[in-house]
């Protein structure tokens, strides 16, 4: 359980880090909290020649409000997110999601950027990021690019990020009045990774009609995704318990769920429906609707 030898760099600025990844290309790996990368390196499933530790770039750790949006630096830890007063007030879905990740020690080291760059199929943030219509900001030596969450997750451990790019921040649009959001998850007892996780964001209009809804699902497929069939079923309708249950059954429509030693594909499909319904119910209650 000892990583293969590598050469180590600890840049203090983003520019320096970008130069290093540009110079070393495929042979370099970024290291943030190390809570996905180091386990892989210890198993020698990953053996990079160069490790660029971005953990000392202080400017990438802030959580702030900017231009009507919330901006979360890539190096904010899960604990930073869980404990952020700003997020608790403006975007409680993210602290709620961060609190579900792993255990205290994992939350003290793991980072938002690392989780989103690694894109584990069972990671928690992806569901929330999708439900929030967030934007992912990627920076390379040739400039900065903004990727909408809905396009960001591509396949197993694969995102739109390109070699040489560093995920620098995540931007969250502010949600309006009469909106509520919630994350509900069935966790794998040993690691706490999601066997099925659902984040829902709902805005209610007059008469408790669902004006807008976004549902992000993680843990179920090779990558996190928006449950568009379920969303379409809900739009414009009154948030009644029966409708929510029917829509929740649709969150795996057109999806080929993963099956592994922890849960079969059929089990994940069933769990996704249960946790999506619970997320929707909680989101609607928080949006001001009656407890569904």
């Amino acid at each position: 359980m000892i990583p293969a030898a590598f050469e180590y760099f600890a840049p203090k600025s983003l520019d320096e880090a970008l130069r290093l990844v540009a110079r070393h290309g495929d042979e370099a790996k970024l290291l943030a909290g190390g809570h996905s990368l180091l386990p892989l390196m210890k198993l020698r499933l990953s053996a990079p020649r160069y490790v660029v530790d971005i953990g000392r770039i202080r400017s990438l750790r802030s959580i702030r409000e900017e231009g009507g949006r919330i901006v979360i630096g890539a190096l904010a830890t899960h604990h930073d997110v869980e404990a952020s007063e700003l997020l608790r007030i403006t975007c409680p879905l993210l602290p709620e999601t961060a609190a579900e990740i792993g255990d205290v020690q994992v939350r003290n080291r793991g980072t938002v950027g690392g989780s989103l760059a690694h894109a584990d199929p069972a990671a928690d943030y992806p569901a929330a990021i999708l439900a929030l219509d967030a934007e992912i900001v990627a920076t390379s030596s040739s400039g900065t690019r903004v990727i909408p969450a809905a396009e960001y997750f591509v396949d197993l451990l694969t995102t739109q990020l390109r070699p040489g790019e560093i995920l620098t921040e995540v931007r969250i649009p502010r949600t309006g009045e009469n909106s509520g959001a919630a994350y509900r998850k069935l966790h794998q007892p040993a690691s706490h990774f999601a066997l099925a996780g659902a984040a829902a964001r709902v805005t209610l209009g007059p008469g408790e009609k669902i004006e807008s809804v976004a549902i992000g699902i993680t843990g179920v497929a090779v990558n996190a995704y928006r449950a568009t069939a379920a969303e379409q079923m809900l739009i414009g309708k009154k948030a009644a318990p029966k409708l929510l249950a029917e829509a929740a059954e649709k969150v795996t429509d057109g999806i080929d769920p993963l099956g592994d030693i922890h849960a079969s594909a059929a089990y994940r499909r069933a769990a996704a429906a249960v946790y999506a319904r619970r997320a929707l119910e909680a989101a609607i209650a928080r949006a001001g609707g009656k407890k569904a």
Partner: protein
Amino acid sequence: MGVEIQVHVNGKSFQNEVDPRLLLVHYLREVLGLTGTHIGCETSLCGACTVLIDGHPVKSCTMLAVQADGAEITTVEGLSSLPEAGGGLHPIQEGFWEKHGLQCGFCTPGMMLAAVGLLRENPSPTHAQIRRALDGNLCRCTGYQHIVEAVEYAARKLRAHKR
């Protein structure tokens, strides 16, 4: 190939040249000789290797020694020299003693450091909060009940000490 690091461990300053791939837990045990930090699973799951980095519990098997450069580290050997220990056993150590919070003791150093991390953030934790804070620490012997009581004991003692 070696990288120079400087760390403060239990109040003492150390400077060493280390191989970048050296895990923090191996640095503590093999370079500094602080074998109180245990290695259980080596796969980030058991928490036996938990130490405090700048006051926060971290699994030292899932961190490189070079990542700790400049950090303040507390291991079980340092608990009794923390100010709140008042020169004797730290209240958490006393709690494990008084409440029989251990059997084989293998998980105990990690448990105590996770608990100290909790009590710094939350001096009056509920049972549920204690269990949540120890979620990353496995014990194969006790069934956890006495560990929770040990943490409660320490919380009470620390609150009294503050008054």
